[in-house]
């Protein structure tokens, strides 16, 4: 009996100690990004070197996006994430809703060191990435698609097409297929007639579309021949060409590019380290290593200039690739995503 009591006393003490330690010791800096081979690259060139510099461990996690996730964390009080890489809309929404700390731009050498769209009050641009038309050049040889009009042309290119499920991107691409100039896409989409026009254009290929959701799906669809062409993320395409010897090609005119940004969550207990990390990841000597691993454009101008020409040609930021490319309009989508998603779901269900 006495033995038992000793055991439980020790156990209790240990429990109390560990609880006290847990409460006292600050949580390590936690960085959240998109996972996959992108985060593997980030780990090598940002997270691990920064941990060494900091002299403390740096934790990293991955997520799938959604401002609701961030809202839940911030509203719970002290968040368990510090730095998060977010998409354009999450940046816009979260900034107006007060989910992020304001960026100290003096630490980053000023906003003019970055592409204008990458310098936000609440976020620092991390990558420039594109959603674009892609196809397998081993399967389509002489007759290749060059525009969204071709994507819609089921006579010239019989077979299924892959599109990301949801109104975002689908409506823009539909308008371009219908003859709207890339520069005018959002002007047209801001009118009710423009939205109707886009949905009407989508009607034309509705029965030929395979809708994908996760970024790895379009690669699988192309590789298996399930679709003849698909929208995809440019970094994934050049990644699979490199690792699996595929010959997937992309069509830059009419592509839509967007910037992902680093943000610091409101009331982060590691705010200082978080800001230092963002500065570290934005330093030209660190950021310019990224295109070695994955074909994303760099928003820090000096870093972008330091990328070797051969790699730079594959990036969304290359001058030739920017011609007739459209910047994703975050403001349009934060205003309209709910209404248009409901309508898109209804359209799909018809």
């Amino acid at each position, binding site marked *: 009996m006495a033995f038992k009591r000793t055991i439980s006393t020790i156990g209790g003490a240990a429990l109390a100690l560990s609880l006290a330690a847990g409460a006292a010791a600050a949580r390590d800096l936690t960085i959240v990004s998109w996972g996959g081979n992108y985060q593997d690259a980030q780990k090598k060139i940002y997270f691990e070197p920064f941990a060494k510099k900091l002299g403390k461990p740096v934790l990293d996690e991955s997520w799938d996006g959604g401002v609701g996730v961030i809202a839940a964390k911030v509203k719970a009080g002290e968040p368990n994430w510090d730095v998060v890489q977010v998409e354009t809309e999450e940046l816009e929404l979260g900034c107006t*809703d007060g989910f992020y700390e304001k960026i100290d731009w003096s630490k980053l050498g000023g906003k003019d060191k970055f592409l204008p769209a990458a310098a936000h009050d609440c976020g620092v641009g991390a990558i420039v990435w594109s959603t674009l038309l892609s196809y397998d050049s081993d399967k389509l040889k002489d007759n290749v698609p060059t525009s969204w009009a071709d994507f819609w042309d089921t006579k010239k290119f019989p077979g299924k097409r892959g599109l990301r499920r949801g109104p975002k991107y689908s409506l823009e691409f539909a308008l371009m297929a219908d003859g709207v100039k890339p520069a005018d896409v959002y002007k047209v989409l801001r009118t009710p007639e423009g939205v109707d026009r886009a949905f009407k254009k989508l009607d034309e290929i509705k029965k030929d579309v395979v809708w994908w959701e996760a970024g790895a799906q379009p690669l699988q669809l192309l590789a298996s021949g399930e679709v003849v062409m698909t929208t995809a993320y440019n970094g994934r395409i050049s990644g699979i060409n490199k690792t699996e010897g595929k010959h997937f090609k992309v069509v830059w005119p009419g592509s839509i590019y967007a910037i992902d940004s680093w943000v610091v969550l409101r009331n982060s207990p590691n705010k200082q380290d978080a800001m230092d990390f963002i500065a570290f990841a934005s330093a030209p000597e660190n950021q310019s290593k990224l295109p070695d691993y994955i074909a994303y454009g760099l928003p820090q101008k000096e870093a972008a200039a330091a990328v070797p020409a051969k790699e730079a040609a594959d990036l969304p930021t290359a001058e030739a690739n920017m011609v007739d490319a459209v910047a994703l309009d975050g403001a349009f989508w934060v205003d309209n995503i*709910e209404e248009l998603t409901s309508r898109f779901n209804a359209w799909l*269900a018809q």
Partner: protein
Amino acid sequence: MSVALRARLTALGLITPLVAFLVVFFFWPLATMMMASVTDGTVRGVMPETAAALSGWDGNTPPSPEMQQALVADLRKPVDQLAFGDAVRRLNSELSGFRSLMSHTTSAVRDAPEGQALDLATVDPRWSETKYWLAVKHAMPLYTDRYLLAAADLERDAAGNIAAVDAGASANRQIMLRTFLIAATVTVLCALIGLPYALIAASATGWVRALLLIAVLLPLWTSLLVRTAAWFILLQNEGLINEALKAIGLISEPLPLIFNRTGVVIAMTHVLLPFMVLPIYSGLLTIPANLMPAAASLGASRLKAFRYVLLPLAFPGLMSGSLLVFMVALGYYITPALVGGPNDQMISSVIAFFATGTANWGMAGALGLILLAVTTVLYLVYGRLSRSPTMVGT
């Protein structure tokens, strides 16, 4: 203290952890989400002066200067940014465009000199339209039925009557119906496969039984994503099944097995089958082995013995298996997203969109509440049906 009372207190003490667990992890979140689907008032909280100014407005006459100045006064005040964000999100969910309108207006108001009247229509022409003011007015009450109505594709028209939303604006009802239909189909298929499977497993002995059970349990220990991806490889046009059928000359064109309802039902049935087999199997194990010979000795044919002896005894297991499969199937969305087509998305994908995509927890809560209500009704019906397992025999 009497012995009985002490015993009762001890018993209470023993279930305290259970009660605490249920309250914290079940009732409290459920109540929070239910409340989120009917409470409003975030807008009133950050715009008290506008609320007062709008209370007398009939909703038809053009917006008055008093209303405008009340809004300007509210926007001038320093506010909790999180609360203000909630209010803007609420307004934008009623009328698209409020986000840009509010951020635009707020910065214009803060830049304008203090104490000077500001014409909002010059800041943004949208402020001269009544529909934006009407949206603000609608957001003022502390409780609302708009989320619940919107979840069922309904809304209040200008006169305040409940009306259907424009055709093509929303399809929640259809998606909800589809969810129940898919769940029911999967349940029936699981029962058709699971019952014979469990019967065979229960009557088998030795390694055959072990093999049969492992075949059911192994998939249960594999990640849902992996199993779904495996189906993807099997079902696609150039997948194993189509290639095999082509090789033996049964088909010349690949069968459309994926990105449609067939694919979803096949994959979900496979994933959920263990939830059907295991309850039936464990029920069958408790049936004495000599019941069937006894029925035979009384002159029953094998079919009759099965129909009147074995089936009624397996019935409770079949019922609880069906309930499990149906309930779990209702919440699926990864499998339909990966192997389904445009018409196979289930309601949880819509709930997930509102919960994580736009942080519109009112809408997510309302859709969840309706799903819960319909499921509860179905459960009650089911409870009545499953109470009398002997009904098959009478």
